[in-house]
């Protein structure tokens, strides 16, 4: 058993509360990604699990035992840092074996484990190089290898790909997914990139201001965001939001937007709302509900295009269209959506569901 349990965990720096009561259970072998904007506390939370930050309140359990007071080295955790944190004066082989050397393992076993990890990560031809002689991607592999050789049940990644360029990032993302598949260690991964979160995670934890905004599988978060923050954070380009008013009329609710009124199934809530629709759910020229729109700009991306539109009272939204639609900036068109793909949020930014749903 090597799951992680966070029970009402709090972190304060002086008067400032950075982590404000986080409850989370991570199952053995699960790949969990902490994601959120900078300053949301995701790295702090990871460092608390690692033991690099003290826990101000609450409890951390690893494999069922309380770990709050356990020093980092005794928590059986391997960690990969954003800056790789390789030891610059040691060659790759010693970098990989240093933890085992510290643990006084026999030299033969260190050699064996280092060779195995290096082969697994395809860096076995670099063993006698220094970190400064490696490319960013190779340094990253060494950093991961250093975690691998320790054969721990628990892996922590702190924004490991953010120093790499786009191509390498994709390559290493695939690599990390492969490692997780083969090693099956419980993994906690911190990133600000929602794309990494979506592709890697079994479950995503979206953090905002030191609290959990939502926990769920990538598709749950995408399909059913619990609040406006998660809705805007997951998905790219981000979800469009239009302000409106929801009024109850008999067995139906009516949503009034700046460009028209739309009948919906009955909601318990009435009042100010925002309507959220993802760019890929907007339909040019159709849909169950429609708005008049003026085309501002068409950005062709090859297989698809982003169409920037002006709707209602001068609010701009983005629609994703397949191929290259035959419209020009300045033209007037109709943009629509299907009600099942629309999200409603109340004035406290919580997601609204129709009665009975």
């Amino acid at each position, binding site marked *: 058993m090597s799951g992680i349990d966070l029970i009402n965990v709090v972190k304060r720096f002086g008067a400032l509360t950075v982590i404000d009561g986080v409850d989370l259970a991570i199952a053995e072998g699960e790949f969990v990604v902490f994601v959120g904007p900078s300053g949301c506390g995701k790295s702090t939370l990871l460092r608390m699990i*690692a033991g*690099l930050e003290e826990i101000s309140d609450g409890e951390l359990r690893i494999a069922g035992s309380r770990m709050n007071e356990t020093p*980092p*080295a005794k928590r059986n*955790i*391997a*960690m990969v*840092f*954003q*800056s790789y*944190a*390789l*030891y*610059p*004066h040691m060659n790759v082989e010693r970098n990989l074996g*240093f*933890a085992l050397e*510290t*643990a006084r393992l026999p030299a033969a076993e260190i050699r064996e484990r280092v060779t195995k990890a290096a082969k697994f990560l395809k860096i076995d031809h670099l063993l006698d190089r220094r970190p400064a002689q490696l490319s960013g991607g190779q340094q990253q592999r060494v950093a991961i290898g*250093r975690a691998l050789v*320790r054969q721990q049940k628990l892996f922590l990644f702190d924004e490991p790909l953010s120093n790499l360029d786009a191509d390498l990032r994709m390559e290493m993302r695939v690599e990390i997914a492969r490692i997780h598949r083969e090693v099956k260690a419980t993994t906690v991964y911190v990133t600000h990139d929602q794309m990494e979160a979506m592709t890697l995670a079994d479950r995503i934890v979206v953090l905002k201001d030191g609290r959990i905004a939502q926990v769920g599988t990538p598709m749950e978060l995408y399909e059913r965001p619990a609040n406006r923050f998660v809705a805007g954070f997951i998905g790219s380009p981000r979800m469009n939001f239009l302000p409106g008013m929801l009024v109850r009329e008999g067995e139906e609710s009516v949503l009034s937007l700046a460009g028209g009124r739309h009948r919906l199934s009955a909601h318990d809530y009435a009042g100010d709302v925002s309507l959220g629709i993802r760019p890929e759910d907007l339909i040019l020229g159709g849909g169950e509900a429609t708005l008049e729109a003026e085309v501002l700009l068409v950005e062709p991306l090859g297989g698809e295009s982003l169409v920037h539109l002006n709707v209602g009272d001068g609010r701009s939204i983005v629609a994703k269209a397949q191929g290259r639609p035959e419209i020009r900036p300045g033209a007037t068109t109709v943009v629509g959506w299907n009600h099942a793909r629309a999200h409603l949020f109340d004035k406290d930014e919580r997601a609204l569901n129709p009665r009975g749903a």
Partner: protein
Amino acid sequence: MVRSATGRRLHRIAIYGLFAVVALYTLFPFYWMIASSLKSGQAIFDVTFLPDLKFNNYEAILSDGVFLRSLLNSLVVAASVVALSLGLAIAAAYALGRIDFRGRSPIMFLFLAVSMFPQIALLSGLFEMIRWLGLYNTLGSLIFAYMIFTLPFNIWVLTTFMRSLPRQIEEAAIMDGCSPLRIVRCIFLPMMGPALISTGLLAFIASWNEFLFALTFILTDENRTVPVAIALISGSSRYEFPYGAIMAASTIVTVPLIVMALLFQKYIVSGLTAGAVKG
């Protein structure tokens, strides 16, 4: 900047001219010392710029047991000061640079304040301490006294250097199961090479050249260090002042410093600036 061809030439002449003046200013005393050491007898009082290449001053000084003994003493003192002050400064720098505790910056300023006192102000107090510790007229008294000015400087430089080392490397070592001692020994020390060399070298030079403490705390010839020994070289009669011998001795004493400075010059600069500029 765009200049005409003559302008460029004038510019270059001006720069080399300035170099020449600075070089003359700094190197002439050394040249004079070496040139004088190579003259014998009365020739030393003639103003000639070319040396005679006579080595009898060196023969005389190198056959002088007291001088050789003082060379050895200086070496022992300077090496001990370097070893002790680096050892203590590394430990202090780890604490001051890496561990958060209350009163860290007052301590740093205290170190700075200590190094600001002129030597002469410390002399009588130090004398009492040395007598009380039973170190009077031993090399230990000098090692003890020199640490007063080498330690604060070493601690300052090493602390700023230690602070500039990436924190994530230390954290990686913590996750790898290293104790603080192992972090300092296996991770920080190798990374601090340039800073250690430059601070060590400066501590060596300061102790090697020190005169006032060496004159005060040492009574007998066999415990003297080189600067005092040179000052006390006397001629065969009270009317003869042995300039030649003094110059030869000074030259011998300067050579190791120059050799060391040349050997390590590349580290000295990078060591002293590494702490100052982040990244």
